């Protein structure tokens, strides 16, 4: 045990006296988080419940609609209903609806006009609903399948955050519509089937329908009120607070830079092999597994310390900018700690694996950086990949997605982070074991 502690101490000492590494580990992510925070300083000031507001968005509904059971449905209209306030809406209605505050949606009839508006910056994004939208997603006895439908979100790259929000909203509304359609179809089908199999019920249902007694209201299925778009969160005290980008961007930066740290720390194994200090360790009466395990633990500890420091620093920054103390990461300290630990474990495991498959420290630097960058891109550090075909799915294979998702959930006091913890734990263990096996085999030639 003394040897393990000695190796870990040596690793940490070297790491924390290396100014270059400290810059990568702490200063860079802090600076980036600070810049992002300042960009969102209005949001953090607490002056508004929804600091990001009035995102200009154009809606072009080309949907031709469908007829189902004798009634006409135009699902594209739902986007307009959800995002554009009724002309006669009073102030209270406008104030109570978060989406009305978040967006400033206008309905346009021309796709060209909408695109031009986005191009010249009038709109942050345009939601363009295709002509066959309803036809594709409507579920009925005559058309018992839901086909993929594309709602185009034409975004202004200069307003990536706003565009990302609009993209998320459009995605949520689309899902809500699809779900609602299936629910309606299933309900009606069930009623018809029962009426067919139970003549007494059929007669009774027919009489009630004829008398106007069956007037189902499916509107809530398409309404934003059912939670299609969640942009609010509650504090423990139940006070509504604003969407906090520090959590999303801060945790993204923290996990992203932790990957670099893990890569650099694990890469020191290769540097030690080149400098022969690794051989000197192995030539000592220290079991080989102890040397590798200590390296892994040191990498893990370095990652944990880095993330904890960043979380604390981001909390302080957030509090300073908002003018009041804010625990932006939520109040479930144990869960936060567990998330930090498994995220660090996953990063350290990946670092050891990358180290095991490259030959030189230079290769390790390149492959490690590329791996971290790829994970950052796919995982959504630079732009949201959710809802983007392939990338959105691939993101779920990254440490960043699961780590940031867990921090996001915890920040709104959700506790359903078990899948995140399990994925990160397994990810870390599998990659560490694979890395251990490969590296040990290469040492023992």
């Amino acid at each position, binding site marked *: 045990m*003394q*040897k393990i502690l*000695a190796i870990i101490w*040596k690793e940490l*000492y*070297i790491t924390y*006296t*290396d100014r270059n590494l400290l810059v990568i580990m702490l200063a860079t992510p802090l600076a980036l988080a600070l810049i992002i925070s300042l960009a969102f300083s209005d949001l953090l000031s607490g002056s508004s419940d929804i600091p990001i507001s009035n995102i200009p968005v154009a809606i072009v509904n080309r949907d031709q609609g469908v007829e189902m059971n004798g009634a006409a449905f135009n699902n594209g209209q739902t986007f307009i209903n959800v995002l554009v306030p009724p002309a006669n809406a009073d102030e209270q209605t406008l104030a109570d609806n978060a989406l009305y505050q978040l967006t400033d949606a206008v309905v346009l009839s021309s796709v060209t006009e909408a695109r031009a508006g986005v191009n010249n910056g009038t709109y942050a994004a345009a939601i363009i609903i295709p002509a066959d939208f309803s036809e594709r997603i409507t579920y009925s006895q005559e058309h018992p399948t839901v086909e993929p439908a594309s709602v185009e979100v034409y975004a202004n790259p200069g307003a990536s955050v706003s565009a990302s929000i609009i993209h998320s909203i459009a995605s949520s509304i689309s899902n809500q519509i699809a779900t609602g359609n299936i629910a309606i179809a299933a309900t009606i089908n069930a009623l018809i089937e029962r009426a067919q199999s139970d003549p007494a019920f059929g007669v009774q249902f027919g009489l009630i329908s004829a008398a106007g007694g069956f007037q189902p209201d499916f509107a809530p299925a398409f309404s934003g009120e059912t939670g299609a778009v969640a942009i609010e969160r509650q504090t423990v005290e139940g006070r509504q607070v604003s969407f906090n980008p520090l959590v999303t961007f801060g945790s993204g930066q923290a996990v992203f830079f932790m990957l670099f740290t893990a890569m650099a720390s694990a890469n020191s194994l290769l540097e030690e092999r080149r*400098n*022969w*200090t690794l*051989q*000197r*360790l*192995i*030539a*000592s*009466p*220290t*079991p080989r597994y102890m040397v590798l395990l200590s390296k892994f633990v040191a990498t893990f500890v370095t990652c944990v310390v880095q993330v904890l420091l960043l979380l604390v620093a981001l909390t302080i920054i957030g509090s300073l900018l908002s003018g009041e103390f804010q625990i932006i990461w939520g109040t479930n300290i144990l869960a936060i700690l567990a998330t930090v630990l498994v995220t660090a474990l996953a990063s350290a495991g990946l670092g050891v694996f990358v180290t095991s498959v490259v030959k030189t420290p230079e290769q390790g630097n390149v492959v490690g950086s590329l791996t971290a960058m790829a994970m950052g891109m796919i995982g959504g550090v630079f732009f949201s990949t959710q809802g983007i075909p392939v990338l959105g799915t691939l993101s779920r294979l990254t440490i960043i997605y699961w780590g940031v998702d867990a921090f996001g959930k915890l920040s709104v006091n959700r506790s359903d982070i078990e899948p995140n913890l399990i994925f990160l734990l397994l990810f870390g263990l599998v990659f560490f074991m694979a890395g251990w096996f490969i590296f040990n085999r290469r040492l*023992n*030639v």
Partner: protein
Amino acid sequence: MHQNMVEVRDLSKTFKRSNGEMLDAVKNVSFDIRQGEIFSLLGPNGAGKTTTISMISGLLTPTHGDATIGGHSITRQPLEAKKLLGVVPQEIALYPTLSARQNLEFFGKMYGLSGAALSKRADEVLEFIDLKDRQHDKIESFSGGMKRRVNIGVGLLHQPRLIYMDEPTVGIDPQSRRRILDTVKQMQTEMGMTVLYTSHLMEEVQEISDRVGIIDHGELIAVGTVGDLIQKVGEEDRLILKVGSQVVSELLLTRFRHEVEGVTGATHEQAHSNGSDGSATQPDGLIIVIARRGRRALPDLIRVANDSGLDIVSVEVREPDLEAVFLHLTGRELRD
């Protein structure tokens, strides 16, 4: 107590090359190192010295064979064997951002030292390598010679019974080299250590070694004291006569063999050397004469050469040494 500190038996190592071919780096090497002696492995670069030592020190697993250190098998009792071994690699195997003392104490812990005992040993070693006043300075601020001394100090810290030193004088100035060679002798005489030394520098090996093993192409081709090995080639000197571009007749060589006492052989070699401006090559003929008591034969050699109208540009007398042994055993020079 075990008579031999190290016993190596049929040690072999085969590597698989990137093209799939197998390379026999070490082939059935066997030798013993006695308690308290300095044993050197001599051979050109790539001969298999480091691979052999890497197997003995537990860095590489032998493909075949075994070795013991103090009676402990390196394959079956590696940790026991390693406790008796101190390692001084050719590379400066130190952490550059740690101080000399921190390096010593860290590696000391790897050998089970701790607390006051570790601190005391670190003091003693720093004293021995004469770096006590620089003990808190980072290694990266040291000169090459100082780094070498700390490199050696780490190997000595746990007072091993056997210390392995791999080319410890590579890349340092003559003064530091002298100091290190003295240190090696001190380790033997004052500390009673057994030293396993590898070098491609024949002069070093000849100076400090009690016994020498000559290794070439992965095979141990000779083992013995320097005297024993030299006897293998006989006690004949080699006289190198430079004759520049002059023509050397076979008749002259025959006259050397028959008219000069002690001469047993004479050959002519045509070499080329760079011109004084370094830009062109010039013929550089050599007559190599093998003779007993070569210095005594020299005046007669010069006289016979002059009689034949040959001007001798320069003369070099090489007494029998390990270089000659290696040449005799392998047909090529050690430095090739």
